[in-house]
């Protein structure tokens, strides 16, 4: 008796091994059956997304590098009004191209652009919905917490099982990974709007829609932009991991470097990713700041 109880507290009580194996097997089998059954249907559902992604990748790869650098610089200058940043972009992009990584960078860039556009398109309406309904907030918040703490490798698995290896499963996993800040910060931004200002809008007889478009959304924009910035950064991080399931671009080169122990190749591609991250970060932050200019006292 005494022996047994010590054993109970010393060794963790587990289900019998056979049972656990059976559980895993049956769940996997059910999931596999589901994906066999509906996989094609789901794939065709995502076909437009694939076309959208391929369009962007082709566009960026086919466009002459000089035009791309020019466009990025115009964006950067309009946002930051800083020659330093523009020169930094020209030099670093030149470096990437000179080291033969231009095409890979363009693929990654197209991927991130599409992932960001999709995250915004899905995240903002969800954030708005969440801000309007406390119940939606109560349901969505733990899901977002779960999504953000789950190691990214883990949710590659169901996506791959369902859709196989390729661009679309890669894109979906990137979006799933990158969308939480978009939703969270849209919700937060709208909920943070000063109660008295909303009351003023109410006192003039504004409809809920007028309040959203005239007051809540514009006032939440700086916070929403912080969400866009975070989403881009997270998409960049995930693009590397998603290369494991067939996403091309800089990440794939890094993966090749790891498996073959090519130190320099890994460093160079890593550097290119850093450059891309800094450029995206600076530009999106600059636009976020421009939006809030009215908040400072200076003349515009």
């Amino acid at each position, binding site marked *: 008796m005494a022996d047994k109880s010590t054993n109970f507290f010393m060794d963790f009580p587990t289900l019998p091994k056979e049972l656990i194996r059976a559980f895993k097997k049956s769940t996997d089998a059910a999931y596999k059956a589901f994906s066999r059954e509906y996989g094609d249907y789901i794939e065709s559902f995502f076909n437009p997304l694939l076309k959208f992604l391929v369009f962007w990748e082709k566009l960026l790869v086919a466009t002459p590098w000089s035009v791309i650098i020019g466009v990025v610089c115009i964006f950067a200058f309009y946002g930051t009004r800083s020659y330093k940043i523009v020169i930094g972009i020209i030099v670093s992009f030149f470096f990437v191209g000179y080291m033969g990584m231009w095409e890979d960078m363009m693929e990654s860039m197209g991927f991130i652009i599409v992932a960001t556009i999709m995250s915004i398109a899905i995240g903002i309406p969800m954030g708005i919905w969440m801000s309007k309904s406390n119940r939606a907030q109560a349901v969505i918040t733990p899901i977002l917490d779960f999504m953000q703490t789950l190691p990214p490798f883990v949710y590659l698995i169901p996506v791959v099982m369902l859709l196989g290896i390729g661009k679309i499963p890669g894109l979906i996993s990137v979006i799933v990974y990158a969308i939480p800040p978009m939703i969270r910060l849209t919700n937060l931004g709208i909920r943070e709007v000063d109660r008295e200002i909303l*009351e003023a809008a109410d006192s*003039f*007889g*504004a409809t809920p829609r007028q309040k959203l478009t005239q007051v809540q959304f514009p006032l939440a924009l700086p916070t929403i932009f912080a969400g866009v910035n975070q989403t881009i950064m997270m998409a960049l991080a995930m693009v590397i991991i998603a290369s494991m399931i067939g996403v091309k671009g800089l990440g794939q080169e890094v993966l090749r470097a790891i498996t073959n122990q090519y130190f320099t190749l890994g460093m160079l591609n890593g550097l290119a990713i850093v450059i891309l991250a800094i450029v995206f970060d600076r530009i999106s932050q600059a636009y976020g700041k421009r939006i809030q200019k009215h908040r400072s*006292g200076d003349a515009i």
Partner: protein
Amino acid sequence: MPGSNKIEIKKLYKIFGPKPLPLVEKVNNGIGKDELLEKHKHVLGLNNINLGIPEQSLQVIMGLSGSGKSTLIRHINRLIEPTAGEMIVDGQDVLTLSQNDLLEFRKNKTAMVFQKFALLPHKTVLQNVSFGLYIKRVEPAEAEKKAMHWIERVGLLGFEHRYPQQLSGGMQQRVGLARALANDPDILLMDEAFSALDPLIRKDMQDILLEIQSELKKTVVFITHDLDEALKLGDSIAILKDGSMDQEGNAVDILLSPKTEYVRKFVEDVNRSRVLKAKNIMQNASDIAKDLLNGQTFKVKADDVIEKFIDRVVVDKPNVIEVMGENGSALGYLSSERLSEILRK
């Protein structure tokens, strides 16, 4: 409609909390604000408020912090739903309006000015002032014309393309006032509209309001906790305490015959000679002994405050003062006893 009021508040109760309705009766039976909070965990906002506000008059609502002023004014445009009672505006109970009719009511009948201005920080002065018109879907060109008129009227011409944060507090509240007036509401609701301003600017704003009011004759509900402001602006003053109405009446009633200790405390520091006008305290000819009336020559204007003629009274020592109207005719009289009694009390 002579005799009828623009706004008629009847038996209005507001109890904050999850289950207020059963508590109305308890409040009616005399449970106070503290006990209600202690025993039932509900906050007494308003307790049986009855108030009639005549068309074109300026009604002041006073009271200490937490007495329910903001709660009361927000019932007029139903930003707050009451627990029980009626809020009748132009013969129509606002509380029975459908959601759509309520929006129409707010667009057309009322406009509000807020203590902390509540301007839209991402819109320019012009866009702020035309906000109500935008909500009403007034054509942009016309909205701009109207808005510019009011921007000029409150003295902000040249600032129309600035953002609120670039303006001083006084200027921001002018924007708030212009925004309300641009809507051309019948009823102007002002919740401590001038309380956040420093004294000189506050006086400016009071003068602007009085000037505009003498011309437009809106029905104004004005909240303040400053008695001097109340006496300067109000045709009538209502005093709230812990959600109940302690006293309601014109300045003279309140100053000279405070009904409760609370009201008395409110008025005790007021310099009466600076607030009371001759017309406020004058008597009828019949109240004054015949022999005194004959041959008196001391005359004052009806709108003069006591302070303005008290020096002459001290020198001349008249028995009776004649109060005259605009055209010089006698409106009433003021005996020296009455005057000294008022100043002594």
